[in-house]
């Protein structure tokens, strides 16, 4: 049981590492945010779950912690992406289309 818990925890830590690696390597804010949100959320979930399985008395509080992280993390990253878009940070040159910017231009014309 302890062994399985530690393996889960290690996998979570690896996801955390890959998430911050993505934050370091990606070309623009939006892609960094993608890496930063998904990988770190799963990493946090698995690390905490491993520790909760290792000592079972902590499990309720740790499940609550996971729930909070799962609810707040996407909201904050979505708000930040919106702010970045409105404050005029361009998408990277490799991006293809930007429907939100098109719609904003239409609104200003109308």
């Amino acid at each position, binding site marked *: 049981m302890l062994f399985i818990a530690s393996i889960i925890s290690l996998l979570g830590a690896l996801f955390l590492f890959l998430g911050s690696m993505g934050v370091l390597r990606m070309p623009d804010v939006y892609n960094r945010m993608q890496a930063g949100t998904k990988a770190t959320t799963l990493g946090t979930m698995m690390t905490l779950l491993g520790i909760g399985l290792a000592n079972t008395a902590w499990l309720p509080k740790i499940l609550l912690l996971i729930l909070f992280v799962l609810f707040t993390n996407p909201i904050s990253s979505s708000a*930040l992406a919106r702010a970045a878009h409105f404050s005029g940070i361009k998408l990277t040159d490799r991006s293809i289309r930007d429907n939100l910017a098109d719609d904003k231009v239409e609104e200003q014309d109308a």
Partner: protein
Amino acid sequence: MVEYAYIIFDIAYYISLIAILLSFIRFYLGPTAADRVVALDVITICGINLIIQIAMRAGRIVYVDVALVYALLSFLGVISVARYLEGGL
């Protein structure tokens, strides 16, 4: 098997330390303010992990409350900077 488990927990601990360092480098490099806020967000989430791991090492359940505070309130800082950047504060 059990003696390996503690070694694996140690390795996980070191890996999450490296994760904090990498996002701090992004904070240092980041060209715009939004990049730095993303780095702050990732550092906070890795910090929650670190707090729980410290709690496990110390064997005190009372330390978990600090991590709960961060999980509930950390997004407030991110959202406030976001609202400031988009002009809605």
